[in-house]
């Protein structure tokens, strides 16, 4: 009932918090003469942002990273979800695959970066592989669990009513796992987004991850911070997008 004033209060206090804990210390640091290499001033940031926009550097880097992460993520979805459905349906296959899945799950995606470089050089293949690997396991396990958790009575009821296997799959089983799938996709995308930045940081000549390491080597702290802001924004936008999808499905 009194949601609106509460929201306004929360927003105002949140803004106050940002001012007090981030903007104020930053300004004080700049005013007290911290070198721009450590913390650039707001003007230097704007200046650098203008330069990045004029030269297309930022847009190009963002575009490259976005294409990579979306491709890799899609690849993970189209491989992990079908496999997860099959493994969730068959206890036999699940028992056979589980040890392999369990052991690969702990070899974190970052650990594959050097091997990917050895195998694929700095080509796009290596990066796609890292993103795919990062998303694959995050999607696979929840898919298996979702399929195993489908209400057996529902399936039995549909069968009694004379539904074919395809109908049961598309009209009963698949809708039942969609909410879990979307949640897994949200987590998986966040993981893929981290993985591509890591891969670009270590082995790339393009993309946001490369942009910020390159800027670090040239001591352009402004560019590093702008890159961080863009990275954060993209992560937040995708997160909000998946939350939206999740809500849409729930109603």
């Amino acid at each position: 009932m009194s949601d609106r004033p509460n929201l306004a209060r929360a927003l105002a206090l949140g803004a106050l918090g940002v001012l007090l804990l981030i903007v104020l210390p930053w300004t004080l640091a700049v005013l007290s003469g911290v070198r721009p290499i450590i913390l650039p001033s707001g003007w230097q940031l704007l200046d650098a942002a203008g330069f990045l926009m004029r030269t297309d550097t930022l847009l190009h880097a963002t575009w490259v990273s976005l294409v990579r992460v979306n491709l890799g993520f899609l690849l993970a979805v189209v491989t992990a979800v079908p496999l997860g459905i099959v493994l969730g349906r068959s206890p036999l296959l699940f028992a056979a695959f589980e040890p392999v899945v369990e052991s690969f799950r702990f070899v974190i995606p970052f650990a594959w970066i050097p091997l990917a470089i050895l195998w694929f050089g700095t080509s796009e293949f290596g990066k796609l592989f890292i993103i795919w690997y990062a998303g694959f396991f995050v999607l696979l396990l929840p898919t298996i669990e979702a399929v195993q958790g489908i209400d057996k009575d529902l399936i039995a009821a549909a069968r009694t009513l004379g539904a074919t296997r395809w109908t049961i799959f598309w009209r009963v089983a698949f809708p039942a796992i969609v909410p879990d799938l979307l949640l897994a996709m949200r987590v998986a995308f966040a993981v893929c987004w981290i993985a591509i930045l890591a891969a670009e940081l270590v082995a790339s000549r393009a993309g946001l991850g490369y942009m910020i390491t390159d800027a670090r080597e040239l001591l352009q702290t402004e560019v590093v911070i702008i890159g961080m802001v863009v990275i954060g924004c993209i992560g937040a936008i995708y997160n909000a997008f998946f939350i939206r999808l999740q809500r849409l499905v729930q109603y």
Partner: protein
Amino acid sequence: MMAGSDDIRLRPRRPAAAPPAARRAELQRRRRAAGEPRTRMQVLALRLALPLVLVALWAMAAHSPGVAPVLPGPEAVLATLWQMTTSGELFVHVAASLQRAFAGFVVAGIIGVTIGLAMSQSRLVNDILAGPVELLRPISSIAWIPLAILWFGIGFNSVVFVIVASCVFIILLNTLAAAQNADRDLVNAALTLGATPRQIFTKVTVPSAMPGIMLGLRIAMTGAWGGVLIAEMIATREGLGYMIVRAQASYRPDIVIAGMIVIGMVGYALNRLFLALQRRITHV
């Protein structure tokens, strides 16, 4: 004596008595119909089959002409692993990585749990801190690495900073949610019995938030282990992350794969360790 009784209390409850023979036969029949394996041996064979096939494929691929330099066979990797273990080189890197991961994890744990609990206790604190937290949270840990190097240079401090950045928010948000969802009825009961706010906090809120806090810490630990590796690839001169990047640069795929195996094993061990710890703390 004391330890013994503690042990008994901590052990999970015994399962219900075994089902009678008729019911057991029925269960087995149903399992068979569902395509589940029957005996323990069959299960074991089933679980071993795929890993063995994969290792065999790996060996075959490694020994086919043209592949050899980029993909050493399993036996070559094992030999490297053995050689690095006996020379002690491996332990230097593992110890360095673990030390950094632990340092970052402890710092993030102290900051995250403290701020999370503080936010759960006061609306004002919650609203003021929510702004900065929501602003900084989406920035992925990777993006902090270049800034960390600019601020702290190459070395221990940079890596620890990156680990703190990669796990502090997970810990904070899990703690906050767990403390906010502390059982209302318990809090009210304690209030009725005349407990002071301080007593409610230490005796009711914190204990009932413990499972949530531990869960956050366990997820964060996986994050810390990932964070230490990627940070070491860029910002140090030792540790497992540095070891495999170095091996890649000097064209030693056997060391890279050996390192990956060790990374997986340490990650697994850490997870098991934490699960055991979690069970211990939340059950007491």
